[in-house]
């Protein structure tokens, strides 16, 4: 699911949109990064609603997965030499309901392997210290045969 365009945007820009992934475009995802991390923003929209007045858990899981993917991409040494990056297992805990406001997410790589990358991803709204959802994601990296 790696997109070289995504990697290029994360390498070259501090802020931007993730429109190169149609699914991220549907969620209207933006990114914002500094030297320490990439943060994603999912602005509230009616299309995110599951139960009345609450963001659908699936949209939160999708946001957490893409935050994880971004963390895996920026952790790679060479943005021009990327493997295919696929989540193998995703476990999400939902701690608080998603209110109809913007949601933020950021992920940290807990172990960077050549084939497996373990990632911990958090989503929050009002207060980063009170996350609304958290995901543990194990990504599998498929390197091109040549390398």
């Amino acid at each position: 699911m790696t997109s070289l365009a995504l990697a290029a945007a994360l390498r070259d820009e501090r802020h931007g949109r993730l429109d190169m992934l149609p699914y991220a475009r549907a969620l209207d995802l933006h990114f914002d990064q500094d030297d320490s991390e990439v943060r994603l923003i999912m602005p509230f929209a009616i299309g995110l609603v599951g139960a009345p007045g609450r963001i659908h858990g699936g949209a939160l899981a999708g946001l957490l997965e893409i935050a994880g993917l971004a963390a895996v991409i920026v952790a790679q040494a060479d943005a021009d030499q990327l493997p295919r990056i696929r989540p193998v297992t995703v476990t999400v805990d939902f701690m608080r309901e998603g209110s109809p406001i913007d949601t933020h997410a950021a992920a940290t790589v807990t172990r960077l392997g050549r084939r497996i990358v373990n990632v911990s991803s958090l989503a929050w709204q009002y207060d980063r210290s009170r996350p609304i959802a958290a995901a543990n994601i194990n990504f599998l990296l498929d390197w091109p045969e040549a390398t």
Partner: protein
Amino acid sequence: MTRGADDAAARQKRFLQRFLDSVPHLKLIGIGYRDHGKDWAELEMPFAEQQLADPDYGIIASGAIFTLLDNCAGFAVLVVRGEMIPYATLDMRVDYLRAPAAKATVIGHAECYRITRQIAFVRGLAHDGDPANPIANMAGTFMFTARADAMGMFPAPAGSEAAA
């Protein structure tokens, strides 16, 4: 099956279809009703562009499959309860076994195999035509967030005593 039972089943199906059609996020991703039984439910996600993570490879975003299975599991909980009770996902795990075939309709199937006063336990899978060859496997727990009678019963299934 009697004519009356057929009508009741059709009525329940229409009710659930309308309910699912009214969920904005399902409409955004392109997920709709497929089928349900006493303790299981199925949703389907016909291929659509907004589900793609990588257009170059035609890879469906795992988040879209997660959404399909999450909602499918919640739907299975509702059919076991037989009422529109508010619930929230407590946790859910999805193992992505393989990529779906290009432009395939992805089907989510979930079974609520245990239910207590507060928690429902669900297992399920996603496939692209053959349930014996799944794309993804899921396990999740759901909790009830309000009183049982908060949102009312939905039309009883065929042959159910609850209709009386």
